[in-house]
């Protein structure tokens, strides 16, 4: 349950950074904050991070349109699955192949 609440806070922050206009949030500062947020999430404990990753699709249902897609893809944007698969080269290769397939 706590993971969903944390995921909800992170989602709100991320949507604000992504969807605010350049006049409200400097785009370069927004990217810098996202990099900081990414680093913080990747350094979380693995079980808690696993819970967060699983909670983002649930939280995304509370949004609509572009914001929903943004929240749903937070684990993808922040390379959270890769952080969880650290030390597992097979899983990392699988994730890389999935990422390449999605881009192509």
């Amino acid at each position, binding site marked *: 349950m706590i993971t969903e609440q944390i995921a909800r806070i992170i989602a709100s922050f*991320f949507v604000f*950074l*992504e969807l605010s206009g*350049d006049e409200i949030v*400097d*785009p*370069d*500062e*927004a*990217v*810098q*904050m*996202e*990099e*900081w947020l*990414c*680093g913080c999430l*990747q350094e979380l404990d693995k079980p808690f991070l696993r819970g967060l990753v699983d909670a983002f699709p649930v939280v995304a249902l509370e949004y609509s349109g572009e914001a929903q897609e*943004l929240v749903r*893809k937070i684990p*993808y*944007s*922040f*390379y959270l699955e890769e952080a969880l698969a650290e030390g597992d080269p097979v899983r990392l290769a699988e994730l890389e192949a999935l*990422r390449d397939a999605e*881009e192509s």
Partner: protein
Amino acid sequence: MSQTKSKHQTAFSSWLRTGRRSIGPSSDLVEVKFNPWHDPENGQFTFAGSGSQTGDSGNPLRSSPRIAIGRSGARHASAAKPAPGLAQATKRSPTRGTRLEALKSTQTPTKPNPASGSKQPNAAGEAIGGVGEGIYGAAQGLYSILTTNPVTTIANTARGMARSVDAALRAENTPARIQLVRAGDAIGRASARDIGRVAGSAIGNVALAAVPGAAVAEVVAIRNLAKVRPRISYDPAQIGWVKETLNSTKPWVFYNDAAPGARRGKAPVLMRTMPDGSKRPVKFDGVQADYVIDRKWKIVDAPRSRAQVERQTEVLRQHRLIGLWEVPNPAQKVKAFKLLRRTKASNIKIRIARP
């Protein structure tokens, strides 16, 4: 019989080596080999009769500026003191003067007579030497053409053409009669070496013309040079500095502030010109020569991140600069590489800068 043959062989060998007939075995005369003939230009030894004769040979027949033998055969000193070697030889052998006179009278007429004209060069030898110099000069020109920087070659060619044009203009203003007189005078005064040098140069040039590959290669190189455009020098990029709003003691802030050329609390900014003419800033973390550095603590693949890559690519193109992403480890470098590849950013490089 064998002794006589050996004596003849020795005499013939001596003639080959020294160019003079042997005066026979003499227990009191020590033969000293010395070649007084030198090339006046480089000082190297030449064959007998070519070049100039300099130095004291120790042989009174060859170099006798101090001992002149007149037509009557009378020996008289032309200088106050004889050469030291000669004086020593004379002291050793009282009959040396008589022997020298006899030798002088037996000199073969086909050999050059150094005593009568010690400074007179051998015309045939001089001409051959001149031919060699001419060929060498032509070959040297070919070597120079093929090994010199094409830009220098073109510059030299242009200078040579300018000189040729000037000479042609001068010749055009000179009456033909005077030019003919000058030409005849020049030929009349030319030495055998000069004529040989001209002939050799002509031979070398003919040989050069017979090697069209080198000439064609040079022409191709010159044609390629015409396609090379000179580098345009642009004004240095106008990099501004703005105040950083993020102040923290977290490691990622320190990492960004440690970029090369970074200023504490300030960020370098390039102004991006928008399609409507307005300008918007694009922030970086540091500057190093023509590289504008952006440090990435973590790579994020979100719409904002991709938009940032596009902004940076555009502003770098406008300012003719190169971007440089610095990441803390190889894993982030791989992610950054893939992100830049997806966004088709070609003017941003990546390197690892460990914190």
